[in-house]
């Protein structure tokens, strides 16, 4: 079902853990949806010096988190903000179709941690971004209240939104 790279990251996930006093924290999903990820970043001179994550979820969700953490480490804030879901899935040599939404979650969690870092730097309180929802079947972003996917027309699972 999974590629060797996915299995490798699932079996030996990189950067698992928590950074106490992190510069930015991003949390997406919830266990009801199936997956939940928390990313922590430590930033020095605009560079992501350290990154850690915790994930509740399936094999793909764990592998995605691990890959995102590897991709983000050592990057500037601008570079890391540009990591896309597709890049993550590609780096993992592909994910099964019904698991593509996990890769969205990974990049989203990282971007949220970056946003949190920026907010903190500006001295603002953290404000979550509006909810996003991806179709688990074709990966297209949908309005939150959508019952059917605007991309493939399939019925969306009731509990599919991944950011609350």
């Amino acid at each position, binding site marked *: 079902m999974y590629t060797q790279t996915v299995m490798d990251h*699932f*079996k030996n*996930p990189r950067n*698992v*853990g*928590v950074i106490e006093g992190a510069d930015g924290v991003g*949390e997406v999903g*919830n*266990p*009801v949806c*199936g*997956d*939940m*990820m*928390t990313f922590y970043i430590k930033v020095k001179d605009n560079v992501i010096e350290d990154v850690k*994550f*915790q*994930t*509740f*979820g*399936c*094999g*793909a*969700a*764990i592998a995605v988190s691990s890959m995102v953490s590897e991709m983000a480490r050592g990057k500037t804030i601008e570079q890391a903000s540009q990591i896309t879901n597709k890049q993550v899935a590609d780096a993992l040599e592909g994910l099964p179709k*019904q698991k593509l939404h996990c890769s969205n979650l990974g990049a989203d969690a990282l971007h949220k941690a970056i946003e949190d870092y920026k907010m903190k730097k500006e001295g603002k309180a953290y404000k979550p971004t509006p909810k996003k929802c991806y179709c*688990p079947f074709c990966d297209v972003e949908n309005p939150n209240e959508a019952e059917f996917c605007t991309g493939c027309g399939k019925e969306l*699972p*009731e*509990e*599919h939104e991944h950011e609350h």
Partner: protein
Amino acid sequence: MAIIYADHVAAMPIHPKVYEAMVPYFKEFYGNASSIHEDGEKAREALEEARGKVARLIGAQAEDIIFTSCGTESNNLALKGVALAHQAKGKEIIISGIEHFSIMHCANALEKAGFHVTRLPVDSHGLVDPGAVERAITPQTILVSVMHSNPEVGTIEPIAEIGKITRAKKVLFHTDAVDSVGNIPVEVNELNADLLSLAGSTFYGPKGAAALYLRKGIKIQPLLDGGIQERGLRAGTENVPAIVGMGVAAELAVEEIPKRMSYLQGLSGRLTEGLPKKIPHVRFLGHPTRRLPGNVSVAVEYIEGEAMLLFMDMEGVRISSGSACISRSLKVSHVMLAMGVDAATAQGSLLFSFGMQNKPEDADRILEVLPPIVERLRNMSPVYRKAMAKKA
């Protein structure tokens, strides 16, 4: 690495005697049971012998058995067959909320075609209340269908009590007994069942052979139009080797059910006793005593099932889970939601189902390999971290 197969609700090996009995019907006796020459006659005899054996397993008459290809087909034939043949009397059907997809989706299809479906709730153990069946029956009700046992959580339903009610109210009663027949005693007259689904692949028979019991005198509409096989109720050339295999499996089950039950109860008891001692925060699912033998259904809290299952697979242990991440629909098991298990907990469900080739050491091995997997996943779970912080 030794493989421990503990996923018998998904599939099971066939009994060696079943295999032996099937082989000649692939090689020498390949005739079509509808042919009138000697080869056809041989196939027909084998078919009728198997029919008698399957009937004996459930206390039925041979002529009340219709062979089908799988449990799903039997369930479809029961629901749609009754609905289409009896719609002049009424269009109401009652099912439970924890039925197999082949009942649930069948009922959904009938609903779209204009039938009215009542879905009965279950309690936290997954039990249907017979009183609720009685209250749901109206003069327009044509069929009640409640499963005999639920493989996902192991609960055995009060089918005889429900059968008494449907008989008194003169409403047809079907039970999907696919996971019960051959594993625990099932007797159609004791249950007052009018229709009953069973499948050979759930009692050490081959895949591809199943049956629907249809009490004499009850009309159903066939789903397949074609020849007059199975009294015209199920057209299509019979799968003779598989049906012969199911017959032998039924014969073996008649003899071995008591022995199998106590052996499998021993295995599941061993695991059930060990799990909470080795792993904190596990919740047993289903009824504590009215259970399928060899079936252990648990929710390991704060982590997800697929991840556990993959790690167990790497250790050579084959099991299943009701997690949404495993199902192609990405939905948490409807059975657990109906029982009031919250979606997050259901995500961490694991199902162990033992069979006769399992050994007590297999339960011990599971108790050895699972705890470190759980610990590892909990250590990376933000849900666990939050829950522990709350408790501290």
